[in-house]
């Protein structure tokens, strides 16, 4: 009812107006009948009725919903004010949007990665158990089966322990052959984590963990959907893994994963689990390759567990010094393990974005304060002609709300968009992307902060203005009293704060940019352009003999060589930038053999002929492998420059012999060539001495084919797949990609952090510049009269601009100095992300300070120049 009245209030106004007219006519008629003159009758009728406008107003008010009416009016007025002053509106809305949007996006990611609980019920008690060297406490080395079994048997702190090994296998049968990541796990892993299967069951130690148990497998929900079309009858059916049948006993819930990455840019999360039985021959103490996870007994703290395990490790060293000497135990809580690598970077980012929000709020506050000061006169006039104080404040409040809501809406949009952009742009293995989405709680919080700032700082000055007698500002006529001094102090504080924050962000961004340029300038040691790579893993069951594997690869390479657009072809067991490489100890011929733990350690890989030519690794000395050495065992080795320098510092290594311990029976290999060093583990990694054997030396079942092409390497990807399938219809090729993409993936983390920081720093810079420009502009406006007098008295414009510049730059300067001091402390957080750049890099700091100072100067000058336009006469006449 009330609403129908509200919307029909104009109709009723008309009806009542006509009714009042009718009254006047009736009364006039009566008065004339009583004998009055026509004019007297009309006048008397009006007196009798009273003021018809007041009556109509009263009725109109009765129909309207008071606050709504005023609100609607204020809203329209506010909108007109914004449109009249689009610069102010745009800056305020944009500032709010940036603050809200960026914060929500970053906090969403931080929340999802750092704060969200791990998806395992026992997460808080799960600990990774690594081996470390006494010289490197923080090292996380995989361990050997024998060591694990001893830990499991003798420890006093774990309720249970399980091993895990990230492997790869080939799935055949039903569709194209496919290489999948498989995790070999101790059968108790799932119960340690506290997770169960979505369908079927998980492994049970007494059933699946014994020698001769049935071959079983558990599938990930993703693999089950992708390859088996979510077949509900999958349980109990047989699948073929590496040419051997396995029975599917379970499917894990969607998103389940237990994946601890180790220095790999591209390793894939496992999609299948098979039980690992460590008994008999497999319980060896050589070969460290197992990750170990333990579930702490309730009540056992990490330091207690660490000290218990350390003393256990010392006992193991005493038992078997040959393989355990210098090895200790390093416990890492699972959470730290999974987020530790990215935590400092994310924290810095979080701090950065928090600062941007602060700057944004400060800027909005400054904007509103300056605006309120400019409108003091208007408010005074409105109050002088009868506007109530509440009415004035309410109107300003509506305006502030309008801007705040517009800013909030834009912020919401930006938050939504930038969360998506962030996820799309983030390197896949930097952040666990599953389940990261815009965090609504964060959005609400950020919005509340930003909007409150707007409303508070928008309205507070209006309240102040409404409280003072309207005569004051009218009398002042632009001269300013002590109130404005307080305001100008507040504004100065904002500018100082803005410059402090901007400098901190710029310093961070500067360091990252410098680090990235240095990183990109690093020579990987080979020519990545126009090289296609693809990994070919041969199943052991089918390719059980060394000769069969050698034959397959030799045939594959020779067929690939005949393809159009191929320059040269080769293969490598451990491709640079793909993550892993084997390492082992060596003995040099003619020197006494050292115990295993003291031998020099080198990296070792297996290559096919023409590898160095195909990759563009320069030959420094000697020769590379011949075609014949590619198929026949020859005991020859090509070594890297750094290996030559380490083992034969002042001698010619060619023709010398070195024993590389990779097999049961090891015979010395003759050095036939020295090649350039390769940054195998990434551009930011150290160069390690590396040896290259020809393929027959170990005849691995996995090799990565490298193809140097004439043009775009990816154009040859289909041909590569087809060639492999023609050789063996069940043989997949995995990870087909260009060498360049591998290289760029290795830098993705740094690049990601750099771009983000640069974006934030850019925002901060923009906000700071707007801030100082606004303040100086305001000073000029405030002091127009004073400037006029000075000019009239003979001051030069240059002198006045100088004066204003000094005033502005003093604020910027203080901010810059504070910012420098603070960021010298803060950039330490970035150390993990920096390459070849110290966290206090003086060049970066000098550049940032100089740059920010210069920009501040320019902004001040542009604003101060307005003072030169002040006409002395006009300024004096202004009152």
């Amino acid at each position: 009812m009330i609403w129908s009245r509200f919307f029909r209030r104009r109709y009723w106004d008309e009806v009542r107006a006509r009714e009042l007219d009718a009254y006047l006519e009736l009364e006039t008629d009566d008065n004339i009948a009583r004998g009055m003159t026509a004019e007297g009758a009309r006048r008397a009728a009006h007196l009798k009725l009273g003021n018809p406008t007041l009556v109509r107003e009263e009725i109109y008010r009765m129909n309207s919903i008071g606050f709504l009416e005023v609100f609607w009016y204020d809203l329209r007025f506010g909108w007109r004010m914004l449109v009249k002053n689009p610069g102010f509106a745009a800056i305020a809305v944009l500032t709010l949007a940036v603050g809200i949007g960026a914060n929500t996006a970053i906090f969403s990611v931080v929340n999802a990665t750092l704060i969200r609980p791990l998806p395992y019920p026992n997460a808080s008690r799960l600990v990774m158990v690594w081996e470390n060297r006494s010289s490197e406490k923080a090292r996380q080395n995989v361990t050997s089966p024998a060591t694990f079994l001893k830990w499991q048997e003798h420890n006093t702190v774990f309720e249970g322990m399980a091993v895990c090994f990230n492997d790869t296998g080939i799935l055949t049968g039903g569709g194209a052959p496919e290489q999948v990541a498989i995790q070999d796990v101790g059968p108790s892993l799932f119960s340690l984590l506290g997770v169960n299967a979505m369908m079927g069951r998980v492994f049970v130690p007494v059933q699946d963990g014994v020698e001769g148990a049935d071959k079983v497998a558990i599938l990930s929900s993703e693999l089950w959907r992708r390859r088996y079309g979510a077949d509900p009858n999958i349980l109990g059916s047989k699948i073929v893994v590496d040419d051997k049948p396995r029975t599917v006993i379970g499917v894990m819930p969607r998103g389940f994963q237990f994946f601890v990455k180790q220095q790999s840019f591209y390793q894939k999360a496992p999609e299948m689990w098979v039980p690992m039985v460590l008994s008999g021959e497999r319980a060896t103490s050589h070969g460290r390759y197992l990750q170990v996870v333990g579930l702490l007994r309730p009540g056992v703290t990490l330091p207690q567990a660490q000290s218990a395990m350390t003393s256990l490790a010392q006992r193991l060293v005493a038992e078997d010094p040959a393989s355990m000497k210098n090895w200790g135990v390093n416990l890492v809580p699972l959470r730290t393990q999974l987020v530790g690598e990215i935590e400092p970077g994310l924290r810095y980012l979080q701090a950065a974005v928090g600062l941007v929000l602060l700057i944004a709020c400060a800027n909005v506050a400054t904007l509103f304060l300056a605006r309120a000061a400019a409108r003091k006169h208007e408010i005074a006039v409105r109050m002088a002609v009868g506007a109530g104080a509440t009415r004035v404040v309410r109107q300003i409040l509506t305006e502030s709300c309008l801007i705040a809501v517009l800013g909030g809406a834009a912020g919401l949009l930006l938050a939504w968009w930038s969360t998506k952009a962030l996820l799309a742009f983030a390197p896949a293995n930097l952040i666990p992307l599953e389940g990261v989405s815009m965090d609504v709680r964060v959005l609400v919080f950020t919005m509340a902060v930003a909007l409150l700032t707007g409303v508070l700082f928008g309205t507070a000055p209006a309240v102040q203005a409404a409280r003072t007698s309207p005569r004051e500002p009218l009398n002042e006529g632009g001269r300013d009293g002590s109130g404005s001094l307080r305001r100008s102090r507040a504004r100065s504080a904002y500018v100082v704060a803005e410059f402090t924050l901007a400098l901190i962000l710029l310093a961070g961004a500067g360091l990252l940019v410098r680090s990235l340029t240095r990183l990109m300038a690093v020579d990987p040691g080979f020519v990545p352009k126009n090289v296609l790579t693809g990994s070919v893993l041969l199943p052991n069951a089918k390719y059980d003999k060394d000769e069969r594997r050698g034959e397959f690869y030799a045939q594959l390479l020779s067929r690939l060589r005949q393809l159009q657009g191929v320059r040269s072809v080769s293969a490598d067991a451990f491709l640079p930038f793909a993550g892993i490489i084997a390492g082992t100890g060596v003995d040099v011929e003619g020197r006494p053999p050292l115990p295993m733990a003291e031998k020099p350690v080198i990296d070792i890989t297996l290559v096919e002929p023409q590898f160095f030519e195909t990759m563009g690794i320069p030959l420094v000395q000697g020769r590379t492998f011949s075609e014949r050495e590619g198929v026949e065992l020859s005991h020859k080795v090509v070594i890297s420059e750094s290996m030559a320098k380490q083992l034969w510092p002042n001698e010619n290594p060619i023709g010398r012999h070195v024993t590389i311990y990779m097999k049961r029976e090891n015979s010395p290999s003759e050095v036939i060539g020295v090649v350039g060093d390769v940054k195998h583990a990434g551009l930011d990694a150290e160069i390690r001495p590396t040896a290259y054997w020809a393929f027959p030396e170990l005849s691995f079942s996995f090799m990565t084919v490298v193809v140097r092409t004439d043009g775009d390497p990816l154009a040859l990807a289909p041909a590569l797949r087809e060639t492999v399938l023609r050789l063996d219809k069940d043989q997949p090729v995995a990870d087909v990609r260009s060498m360049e993409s591998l290289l760029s993936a290795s830098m993705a983390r740094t690049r990601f952090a750099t771009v983000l920081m640069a974006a934030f720093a850019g925002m901060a810079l923009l906000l700071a510049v707007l801030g100082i420009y606004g303040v100086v502009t305001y000073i000029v406006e405030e002091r127009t009269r004073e400037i006029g007098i000075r000019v009239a008295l003979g001051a030069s414009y240059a002198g006045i601009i100088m004066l204003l510049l000094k005033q502005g730059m003093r604020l910027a300067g203080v901010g810059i100095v504070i910012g420098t001091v603070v960021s010298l402390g803060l950039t330490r957080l970035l150390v993990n992300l920096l390459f070849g750049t110290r966290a206090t890099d003086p060049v970066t700091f000098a550049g940032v300070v100089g740059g920010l100072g210069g920009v501040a100067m320019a902004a001040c000058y542009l604003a101060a120049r307005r003072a030169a336009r002040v006409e002395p006469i006009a300024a004096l006449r202004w009152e």
Partner: protein
Amino acid sequence: MPKRGAPPLDADLLQGTLDLLILQTLVLGPAHGHTIAYAIEHRSDEVLQVEHGSLYPALHRLENRGWIASAWGASENNRKARFYRLTARGRKQLARQTSRWNQLVSAVNQILRPAEE
């Protein structure tokens, strides 16, 4: 304007009573604003003197509440005027308000009498 007897009452005081008087006036039959104003003025012995304009918001309020209804019609001397009539709900309301008014009057009288004696 005629001024006899007691001084006119304050219009604010009449807020509630004015409603009652309007409803009472309309018991006799439909009437337009001009008639209602004079009727109230005369019947209250001209004690209740208000600007006739202030009657209209009251009429509007009563119509909003659904106690009276209005429509255009022709006046005695053939002028166009808006006529008000009592609705069923208005009639009930009048009964209720009259009894409440009587209660109030007698209560006030009981309090006032001893002071006068």
